[in-house]
């Protein structure tokens, strides 16, 4: 047993750090530091920089653009990316639809979609959830009827994040209303320019518009855009949801927030001395750092135990649960650090619509990002659902 990185892994980390130091455009880095949201062109610009370097899709099969890195290298890459800080490439593309296509797509589908997905020429959104199908995703009701060479799709999706940016959507639909609920589901790729799609914005607690509701009325989707077999969509969706293990805890994001809180605290006066010297503050930082260290090691343990692809260790639910809680705790630490400074609300600044340098703009996104961090324990299988999984599969209860 040796918890330290090997010499090769350390060299790899240096290489990655070095790359992020030069490659992240200054304006984009500034937005990340300030916690502002990126525009579509900005994320495209950054994704293409990664693509040129060959690092846009590290976890993919090397035949289709993966790097062939070990799980530990992938972990190092993710963490350094978050710490740089640099934007995370679009998860829908890189972690969700890409791997599904590689595993279950036809050669033609792979050739048609994968390069555009990797370069973010195609922006995908995820059309899974519905008003009545949240935690109980398999109860989804959006219907698709086969009519000759296309499916006719009708229904309503909810929480279709970034649908307003997207060229494509990967969609779960019900093709067999009579089968057991997991068994009548099909996985389709929908061109967002198709007639019959209405996307309506949902504004979230941070005052930002990122997610949407999406109405589908007689939308025609060619059969050629089906992934795998009809009525087998649930298997592919499960593969997708369980696929992302190396970065699910997003320890790097939490570490970056803690680091930022510590930096800020050095320049914040608390009763005549820097907040960073306040004992209570230091203890709260320490508690969080201890938990993050633990999670980092737990994560390495789980990803190093070679599990066959697509069959994640059920213990990875621990990563999702704890990772989201620590992201929230780190956001809370930042808020507490800023105190009154976090009270001003500026929707446009959060959007990155203006960034007139002001002495106070360092604090403007702290509260909205802290509010929005509540969503990380709800999405991707809520923390209650993760507990159910652990109780059932690990504890056998």
């Amino acid at each position, binding site marked *: 047993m040796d918890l330290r990185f090997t010499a090769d892994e350390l060299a790899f980390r240096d290489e990655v750090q070095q790359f992020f130091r030069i490659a992240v455009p200054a304006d984009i880095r500034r937005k990340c530091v300030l916690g502002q949201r990126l525009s579509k062109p900005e994320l495209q610009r950054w994704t293409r920089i990664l693509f040129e370097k060959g690092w846009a899709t590290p976890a993919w099969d090397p035949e289709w653009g993966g790097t062939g890195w070990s799980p530990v290298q992938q972990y190092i890459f993710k963490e350094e990316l978050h710490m740089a800080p640099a934007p995370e490439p679009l998860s829908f593309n890189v972690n969700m639809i890409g791997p599904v296509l590689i595993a279950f797509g036809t050669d033609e589908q792979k050739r048609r979609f994968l390069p555009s997905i990797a370069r973010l020429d195609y922006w995908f959104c995820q059309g899974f*959830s519905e008003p*009545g199908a*949240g*935690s*109980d995703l398999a*109860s989804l009701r959006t219907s698709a009827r086969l009519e000759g060479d296309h499916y006719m799709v009708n229904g309503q999706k*909810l*929480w279709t994040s970034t649908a307003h940016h997207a060229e494509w959507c990967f969609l779960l639909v019900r093709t067999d209303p009579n089968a057991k609920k997991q068994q009548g589901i099909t996985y389709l790729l929908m061109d967002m320019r198709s007639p019959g799609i209405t996307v309506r914005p*949902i*504004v*979230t*607690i941070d*005052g930002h518009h990122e997610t949407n509701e999406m109405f589908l009325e007689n939308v025609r989707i060619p059969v050629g855009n089906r992934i795998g077999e009809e009525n087998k969509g649930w298997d592919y969706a499960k593969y997708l949801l369980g696929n992302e293990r190396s970065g699910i805890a997003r320890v790097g994001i939490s570490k970056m927030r803690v680091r930022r809180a510590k930096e800020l605290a050095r320049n*914040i*006066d*608390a*009763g*005549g001395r820097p*907040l960073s010297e*306040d004992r*209570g*503050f230091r203890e*709260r930082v320490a508690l969080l750092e201890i938990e993050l260290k633990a999670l980092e090691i737990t994560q390495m343990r789980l990803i190093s135990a070679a599990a066959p692809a697509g069959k994640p260790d059920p213990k990875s639910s621990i990563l999702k649960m704890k990772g989201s809680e620590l992201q*929230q705790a780190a956001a*809370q630490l930042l*808020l*507490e650090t800023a*105190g*009154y*400074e*976090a*009270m*001003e*609300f*500026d929707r446009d600044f959060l959007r990155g619509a203006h960034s007139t340098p002001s002495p106070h703009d360092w604090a403007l996104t702290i*509260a*909205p990002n*802290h*509010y*929005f961090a*509540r*969503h990380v*324990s*709800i*999405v991707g299988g*809520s*923390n*209650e659902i993760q*507990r*159910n999984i652990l109780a059932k599969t690990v504890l056998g209860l």
Partner: protein
Amino acid sequence: MDFELTPDQQMITDGLQRLLAERYDFEHRKVHLFGAPGWSRDMWSRYAEMGLLGLPFAQSDGGLGCGPVETMIVSEAFGRALALEPYIPTVLLAGGCLRLAGTPAQRSDLVPRIAEGSELLAFAHVERQARYDLADVTTTAQRPTASADWTLNGAKSFVLHADTADKLIVSARVSGRQRDRSGLALFLVDSNAPGVARRAYVMQDGMRAADVTLSNVRVSSDALLGTAGNALPIIERVVDCTIAALCAEAVGAMTRAHELTVEYLKVRKQFGAPIGSFQALQHRAVDMLVMIEQARSLSMYATMMAEEADAKTRAQAISAAKSYVGRAGKLVGEQAIQLHGGIGVTEECAVGHYYRRLTMIDILLGDSAHHLAVVAASAD
């Protein structure tokens, strides 16, 4: 011990709750929130008609002569409704300074107008560098001779509802250094006076505030409240009374967020059953209830101690309450969102608005970590 409200107090509770239920539901509130000035002038006059705006002031000054219990009742009701009006700055903060330190002339001039709703005040005390240290004031007030006008210079931040205030009560240093306990004074300043500049903004919870700069602002000697140099104990009393009110407001907000959550658990179905039938969620809702009842008890305790004459005893009690209630408010708000699932993080859903207010309440006048440190430092 007696936990009953008097018939008069019960009347205030019933009247205000009825008014807010009729005219301050989530939809009404949204109209006020997004309109100008970000709250309702109509509601403000109704509060005035009910006597709420004159509640804590002496009858001889034109108020109702009520105490912290009435303030608690009103604040709790405002918390339930997430009322946006400038009650805290006008009646409790600036009003508190006026009540405790105002000259008879100032009180007889202003209290009747506050009570009838025609005069809005703000309390310009906190400065950016001060964080939660009430003595940390760098704004200065100087005068060449004992009878001359005062000249104020400095910058105040996060001044609640200063954007619409007619008058500001400004704290300034007449002597001593940045964090000295002595040397502070309070001044009544017209918000449109030459040299006063306001940068107005919306806060995270939708309430309004402004940063205020004072550049060579001249006020006459009768603008001084109390005696120059001894304002800090007054400020501390005012802040402690306001913290007690904030605790009550938080309890109102938590209670309502919890009710909404329990209602939702009964109607939202997943896996073919109301999610409230899952024991994991039942226990969570019960944990919230326990926290709220503990917070309610401490809010009552803070109310009881708000006018305690011994400053140290009072401060300990108030800090104890604020540290617990601040934290409980956040935890209850977080769980209210969590149990709502995705809908809980949307602008359309009320619980998120409660959470945002509860988060701001935790920060206002010192967060739970700050107040916990105060209690810990004074523990025997």
